[in-house]
């Protein structure tokens, strides 16, 4: 292989054309679509694509955020700014409410997180607004089970995914027809890799939350990874927080996203780091490590 730097800044533009096509299909084929917004770079990319797909019209569906209550404050701030900037409608629903209603139970122990719980709130939200299509930022390169996911992924009344029931997708034709009670998860950036997303963010000069760039933060070390210290993290007595310079490669909850030691303060340096990276992106997500087939199991239960 030649120099890794040759790959930097080369976003395959055809990917954008394809994703915009998918966005327009969602708007045209469904009555009540929504864009699931997490505050992470992938969902920020989705918002950008939606903006481009309907310009100069406004995004014809709301952004929906399932707030676990354990988000990084920077993410929430960014979310509100982006909704205002794009003029998109924003709907927020809270995992805390699901817990208070007795529909979900807080996990306990050192690895407690609300990552699994948000499925409950998500399904309730889909029911409340009768969303028939939810756009998400999952990519096929993230994980093995996702490599087989369709662009239009049909879920039953319980949000469940069945690998054997998925419709064949031929050429670029998308079949979004569903029965009452069913809904579709749509993944417009299925064919993008992590590097594609970063190169796109750079080429488009997009704003992203500050936690993606190197900053000083109180962390603890656990299982060879760095954890942001917060009131939500259950720490052992020997897990003493210390300050160091880190950034996040992926942004989920404070309880399930590890930081990486990094001095990368701009996109170019981040992209260089990714190319040289030894750990894959979801390696920094503790929730996948529970078992080798963890993602597939969670998907069957309606996880995004």
């Amino acid at each position: 292989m030649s120099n890794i730097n040759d790959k930097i800044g080369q976003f395959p533009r055809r990917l954008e054309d394809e994703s915009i096509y998918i966005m327009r299909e969602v708007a045209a084929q469904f009555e009540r679509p929504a864009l699931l917004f997490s505050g992470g770079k992938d969902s920020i990319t989705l918002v950008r694509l939606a903006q481009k797909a309907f310009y100069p019209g406004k995004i014809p569906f709301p952004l929906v955020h399932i707030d676990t209550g354990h988000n990084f404050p920077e993410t929430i701030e960014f979310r509100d700014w982006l909704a205002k900037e794009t003029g998109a409608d924003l709907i927020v629903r809270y995992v805390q409410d699901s817990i208070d209603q007795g529909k979900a139970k807080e996990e306990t122990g050192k690895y407690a997180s609300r990552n699994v719980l948000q499925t409950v709130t998500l399904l309730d939200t889909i029911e409340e607004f009768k969303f028939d299509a939810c756009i998400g930022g999952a990519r096929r390169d993230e994980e093995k089970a996702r490599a087989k996911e369709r662009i239009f992924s049909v879920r039953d009344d319980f949000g469940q995914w069945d690998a054997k029931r998925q419709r064949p997708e031929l050429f670029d034709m998308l079949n979004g027809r569903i029965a009452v009670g069913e809904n579709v998860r749509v993944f417009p950036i299925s064919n993008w890799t992590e590097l594609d997303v970063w190169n796109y963010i750079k080429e488009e000069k997009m704003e992203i939350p500050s936690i993606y760039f190197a900053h000083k933060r109180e962390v603890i070390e656990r299982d060879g990874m760095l954890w942001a210290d917060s009131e939500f993290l259950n720490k052992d007595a020997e897990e003493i927080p210390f300050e160091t310079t880190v950034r996040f490669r992926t942004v989920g909850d404070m309880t399930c996203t590890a930081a990486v030691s990094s001095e990368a303060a701009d996109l170019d340096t981040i992209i260089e780091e990714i190319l040289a990276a030894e750990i894959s992106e979801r390696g920094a997500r503790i929730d996948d490590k529970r078992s080798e087939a963890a993602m597939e199991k969670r998907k069957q239960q309606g996880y995004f």
Partner: protein
Amino acid sequence: MDILRIATAGSVDDGKSTLIGRLLYETQSITKDKIEALESASKRKGLDFLDLSLLTDGLIAEREQGITIDVAHIYFSTPNRKYIIADTPGHVEYTRNMVTGASTANVSLILIDARQGVVEQTARHLSIASLLRIPKVVVCINKMDLVQYSEARFNEIIESLKPLISNTQFEGQEISYLPISSLFGQNITKKSDQMNWYTGESLLNELEAYEFANQLSQAESRFQVQWVIRPKTEEFHDYRGYAGKIASGTFKVGDKIRVLPTGQESTISSIEKFQDKLEKADAGESVVISLATDVDISRGNTLVLANDLDAPQMKEFSAKICWLDQQALVPGKTYLLQHGVHLGKAKISQIESRLDVINQTVETDIQSLKLNEIGSISLRTAQPVMADAYEKNPANGSFILIDEFSNSTVGVGFLN
């Protein structure tokens, strides 16, 4: 940076997953944590080498059975291009998945086990590559290590492929043959040190060097309207833009166009991509086209150049079809036909024949077409379909059939 899409196909156990694993491994597309996971999974299986096939055999069910059962997408890139592999299963029953995975491919990668030689599946794959008109086929004779890297064996296999290829190859289809060993990394990303008799390229170099001319840009200009943009804001009060992806050909500002099926004519006043104003746009680009005059256009209408008098509009036509559903195709039944984004009702008037993909023979007097079968049918549609012959313009020549009751995608058609 362009994107090369590859469909892989093989039989059970011919080492397709290992080949892909090897490609990823040698292009440094696998990160350390994934390699570690691979090492521990290989150990659990009692293997003393890295089982690269575990990288792509994702689903729990197939890990138990040890075969791939669905289409998986795998990504890697070189400084030259981005690669997308649709890894389609080699199991006998899964023609459906093979057609699906291959539908967007520029290259079809076919694997043959050097010990087994040509098998039924090989014929099926070549036949499907031909049906879908995939312009480039790379035949990899794998597991050369198990036949002592024998040149004679390699030549023997190629010789036995000839009668098949003479049936399936179409004008312009390039076919190349490579002796490889996925397990030992021979001729995958670098030239083999075991087969000096082989003078061709390694697989990766073959893919890197493949120039796929943009044949879609040269086809007749076709633009289907997906969505009409009417902001109705102060700033864009009278704005009306037609959003869609150019299927084939080129559109330029100033071009005189005709709208099908209404036949109205107008002139392109602008082509936009977000805030950029373009002079022209090519096949594959998602754009917004505005017209100089007010015409009534809705989703599914097709824009063609006004001087293109042969632009198709049909309510009766024949097509090749691959059936994708458990429930067989029955003549007389009404389905929904989706051509691009255009949806309408269609009735199957007749099944004319069924193709035996293995022997390349045609049977007539057919009552139904079952899952994984390929045949020729004639159809009638409620509204005109603006599709070209697939051979002439693949981007505007295919359609899917949807069952009105189950909503499943049950068939894929290729216009004659």
